[in-house]
């Protein structure tokens, strides 16, 4: 029974309780199913708050660690290990926050096969939480692959016209990366004698640099596809455009962060020298991602594709932050992951709201919505400004810290910051043009009858806006949570950087 | 005095003729017979080595080869007969439906 006494396990596997209940409910009682799903994910959220209360921020190491021998094969013990530290706590909270929001927002959007939809969502929450909490390379890989399957079904079944194509593309693209990662995990595990992360971190990976580089690159490829970084991003627009609104919110909000978290937890922690060696190329790719994402987003006609490309741009910032290899950059990167989850999640909800009413995503079909849907307009302006990085809102805090970190970074430098900072101007361009096309200008006749937000949508947006303002005005609690852990990580990287030069 | 090499050479030649038979002929029966020929060539090699090393195991192997050959011929001809009923021809090339 001690399995469920550990808060992390309880939180991760609690959604399965919801799944069990939903299985018992007959298919027709859609609302009952939806309520059970929302309540389960909310309870999971409260458990995560309980876990947060037990998390003491000064301790940089893993906390609430649960470690059991899972299987013994060929003289190897494969551990089932779960733990949380400063790097992953915020992402766990983001997951448990966004899941109820996206289920709640899919109330009227999903009508057919609601039972399977909610089950897929809850199972995915288990997968996602597992990824962020796993402390054993093996467990991590299991959860990593496991979380793909529900998203494949969510895109594939409830998606738009080209859903099968984009679902398969999404699945295969990620699988290609994770195959290499599996090889790297095995090679690492076998060469170091253990898959257990704390041991690996304590002992340090004693491999010559060129071998370390290969491992680093294998991990990097798998995570770069997931982030997505510049050349490997072509699955994202298709997956987002075809996924249902709730699916897009979770895909953008959490699944993309598994890539950046992976870089943080594995690439930076396990291979400091290789990180220093590859910091500049990755930073260059990140900057290309920022500028390229912004430009392509500006040229999009489809509202959802525009928002999808903004994710490429925002996560370019996160990657730049992470590979600045100093505490400032990494803290900015982690916070920007949270900000991106909130503001891009909200942006997808905005697309969802208008898509539910007009069943089109073509930007030119809208116009002057602010006049006929004032509340919707107000929330959208706030969310758009937050994703544009307006000071006083959450986006700015992340971007400012990242750019500052990159500027003072031992490996990067002012030139990187200048190019990345142009991203801020380009972000303003595509956001404002989007606002102009959708919310301003004269109202088209067919849009006159559109109803404004109902109470359900308002609660969802209110929660997200609350966080947007909170992180914008008082981010101290968030920074304190991750401070020590990032300090410890950055210390390792600093030593590597000094050793390398 | 007779060297085993010569016997092996004979066995090889017979084997190659068997292979040629399988590849060239279009009549299913002749292909079966070519296979029998190849088996016999193998038996010859077995016996030759049994004789040379003075160990009877080679000859035991011949028996096993024989039983397998017998089983194979039985089943093979049965199949051939059933096919013949539908195809009315023994030509192996008529059977080409199972393709990529």
């Amino acid at each position: 029974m001690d399995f469920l006494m550990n808060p992390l396990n309880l939180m991760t596997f609690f959604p399965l309780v919801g799944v069990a209940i939903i299985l018992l409910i007959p298919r027709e009682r859609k609302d009952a199913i939806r309520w059970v799903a929302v309540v389960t994910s909310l309870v999971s959220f409260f458990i995560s708050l309980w876990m947060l209360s037990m998390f003491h921020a000064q301790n940089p190491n893993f906390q609430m660690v649960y470690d059991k021998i899972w299987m013994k094969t060929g003289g190897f013990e494969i551990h089932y290990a779960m733990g949380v530290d400063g790097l992953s706590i915020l992402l766990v909270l983001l997951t448990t926050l966004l899941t109820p929001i996206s289920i709640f927002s899919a109330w009227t959007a999903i009508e057919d096969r609601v039972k399977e939809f909610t089950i897929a969502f809850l199972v995915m929450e288990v997968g996602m939480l597992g990824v962020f909490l796993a402390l054993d390379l093996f467990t991590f890989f299991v959860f990593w692959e496991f979380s793909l399957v529900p998203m494949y079904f969510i895109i594939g079944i409830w998606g738009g016209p080209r859903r099968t194509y984009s679902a398969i593309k999404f699945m295969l693209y990620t699988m290609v990366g994770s195959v290499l990662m599996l090889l790297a995990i095995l090679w690492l595990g076998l060469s170091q004698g253990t898959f257990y992360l704390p041991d690996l971190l304590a002992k340090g990976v004693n491999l010559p640099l060129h071998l370390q580089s290969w491992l680093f690159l294998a991990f990097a490829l798998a995570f770069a596809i997931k982030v997505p970084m510049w050349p490997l991003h072509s699955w994202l627009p298709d997956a987002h455009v075809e996924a249902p609104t709730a699916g897009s919110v979770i895909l953008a909000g959490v699944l993309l962060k598994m890539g950046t978290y992976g870089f943080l937890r594995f690439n930076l922690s396990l291979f400091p020298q290789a990180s220093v060696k590859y910091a500049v190329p990755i930073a260059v790719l990140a900057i290309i991602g920022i500028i390229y994402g912004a430009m392509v987003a500006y040229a999009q006609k489809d509202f959802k594709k525009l928002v999808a490309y903004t994710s490429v741009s925002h996560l370019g910032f996160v990657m730049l932050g992470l590979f600045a290899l100093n505490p400032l950059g990494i803290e900015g990167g982690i916070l920007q992951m949270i900000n991106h989850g909130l503001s891009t999640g909200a942006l997808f909800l905005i697309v969802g709201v208008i898509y539910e009413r007009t069943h089109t995503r073509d930007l030119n079909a809208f116009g002057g919505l602010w006049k006929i849907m004032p509340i919707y307009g107000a929330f959208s302006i706030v969310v758009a400004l937050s994703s544009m990085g307006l000071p006083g809102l959450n986006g700015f805090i992340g971007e400012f810290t990242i750019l500052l970190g990159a500027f003072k970074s031992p490996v990067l430098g002012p030139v990187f910051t200048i190019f990345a900072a142009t991203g801020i101007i380009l972000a303003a361009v595509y956001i404002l043009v989007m606002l102009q096309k959708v919310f301003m200008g004269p109202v088209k006749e067919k849009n006159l009858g559109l109803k404004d937000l109902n109470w359900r949508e308002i609660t969802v947006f209110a929660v997200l806006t609350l966080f947007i303002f909170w992180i914008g005005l008082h981010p101290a609690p968030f920074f304190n949570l991750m401070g020590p852990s990032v300090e410890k990580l950055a210390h390792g990287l600093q030593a590597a950087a000094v050793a390398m030069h | 005095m007779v060297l085993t090499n010569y016997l092996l050479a004979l066995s090889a030649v017979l084997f190659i003729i068997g292979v040629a038979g399988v590849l060239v002929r279009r009549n299913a029966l002749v292909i079966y017979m070519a296979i029998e020929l190849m088996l016999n060539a193998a038996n010859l090699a077995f016996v030759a080595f049994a004789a040379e090393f003075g160990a009877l195991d080679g000859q035991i192997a011949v028996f096993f080869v024989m039983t397998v050959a017998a089983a194979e011929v039985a089943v093979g001809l049965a199949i051939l007969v059933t096919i013949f009923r539908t195809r009315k021809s023994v030509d192996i090339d008529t059977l080409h439906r199972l393709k990529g």
Partner: protein
Amino acid sequence: MFLSEAMNQTGTFFHLVPWAVLFPVLGLLINMAFGRRMGEKGVAAVAVTASGLSFVVAVLMWLSLRAQPAGATVPFLSWMTPVHIAWAFRVDTLSVTMMLVVSGVGTLIHLYAVGYMHYDVRYKGDPGRYARFFVFLNLFIAAMMILVTGDSYLMLFVGWEGVGLCSYLLISFWFEYDTKGNLSLANAKAGNKAFIANRIGDFGFLLGMFYMFSVFGTLNFGKVFSEAPTVAQTHPQAILVITLLLLLGVTGKSAQIPLYVWLPDAMAGPTPVSALIHAATMVTAGVYLIARSHVLYDLVPAAQHTVALVGALTALFAATIAVAQNDIKKVLAYSTISQLGFMVAAVGVGAYVAAMFHLIAHAFFKALLFLAAGSVIIALERAHHPLPEEGGHDAHHNDDPPDFDPQDMRFMGGLRKVIPITFWTYLIAGLTLAGIPPLAAFFSKDEIIADTKAAFPLVYWLLVLAAFLTAFYIGRQIFLVFFGKPRSHAAAHAKESPWTMTSVLVVLAALSALGGLLNWPHPYLAEWLGHTLGEVEAAGLNPLVAGTSATIAIVSFLLAWWVYGKRPLQSASQPDPLQRPLGWLFTAMQAKWWVDELYWAVVINPYIALCRIAAAFDVWVIDAIVNDTAWLTDFVGEKIARWQTGFVRNYALSVFVGVLLIFTYLLWR
């Protein structure tokens, strides 16, 4: 009794400074929540009191500063812990001066807006938006307060972008119309242009802050200014780069040469917005920034020269364009750019007090000019198609030409008789702008010119030329609008605006007339700012310079009378009297030297094309690579499948080939 309690132990009210920001925020929240239910009167009351209370706090700060001139820093809340920057307010003479101007003029404009928006909202046919206007106006006051009272560059930056946001929201307030009132995207595009131009400026500001943080380790004013001299030694060119990057930010916000293009388009916003944001307060934020960072600028003469040069060039360049504009608000917009050029030139040569003095004077008379222009526009609008509740009959029976635009001066003329109060207040403000002696701007502009004469002769001549053009274009505007005979039905039957608007005009007229007393007989302002800016340049009037600039102003004004007053324009379609003598030069000035077209051709269109290429590249190359690998595997698979012919003999052959290969391998090995 209330004051005594509020006073803390040291007998000052410094700890109340956060309320300067919180009152407007409270006001906007109330209006946002209960706007619909409170009706126009309620909304107006809440908004005006919020701004008024902010002004009261400013006055309290002023009182406290009189007692303790050094000022204080009031911490408020922790903010960016990793960079050790907190929400903290800095109260000193410089910030309080700005607070007084912002909240003072702001409250007056709130009052004016109550009347103006009552009509404007009805003409645009969406009374529901009344509350939203005042929400944004209060948000602007709050953002401006954060800007001026911020204790670190980052907090200043929050206010900086906050006011940028408010100007965006207020410019595109009527987002479905254009300035003439027909449905179009013009206002929305103007809003975008303003925000993006500001954002480009803020890009420079941000980089400046990054460099500052990497060199100083902090963005807090106190620490930065104390460490500046030492850093100037250790990192020789650091301060230069930082100050120039800050200048880029200033050009964005205070509409100087490269990034001024958004201000004329910002006239798309309702007139109170133009008055408050694009004349009195927001655009002066750049001047405040340089004045605040005077320590940095004083260390690097090269930076100061560039600032002065940029200011002077802008002053002259904008003045030339203002001379040839027909839209009443466009003239004032370019005039604002030009006057800002004066201020930036002043801080460029280190004349911080002169700059602040001109800033204050400008806030008064330019706000008045805009509000009076607004009153003229509303007067013409009400005459053109009167509102139903004012006995307006629906049919457009009057003989106004179809393309009648209430903002175009060619349709005005002879308004002094029909709207006398607006005329007299406009005249006072116009003469102040021109720099006619007894009025405020004469002293402030004269101080600037006197200081530049000593420090930077080239800038001096540029400013003198700009002053000459200033007097000319304001004279032109006054004679076109108020003298001669009415050139349209609406001009003939214009009616004076209600007392709520005209009262504000009168107050502002008084302020702009008497503004000179601030620093003339006795340099109060110089002493007052001295506490913050340290040693301040010698005040007092230089008779020679004063004389020359006064004569220039009067001569130029008379010239304007001679061109536009003596033989006033007869009809709206008559070409401008300057058209013939100046020929292509006049058309160039009217077409704003085609700077907008240049930016479109050089920056915007190439960017759009590049984005399209990138989008196509993304689909046809990156996506294609992925899809083609899928197609390739399919193609290869299909080719291999063809090898299974179905003939048993082929399979036998393949087996044999296998045997052969193995055999040969075994042989050769």
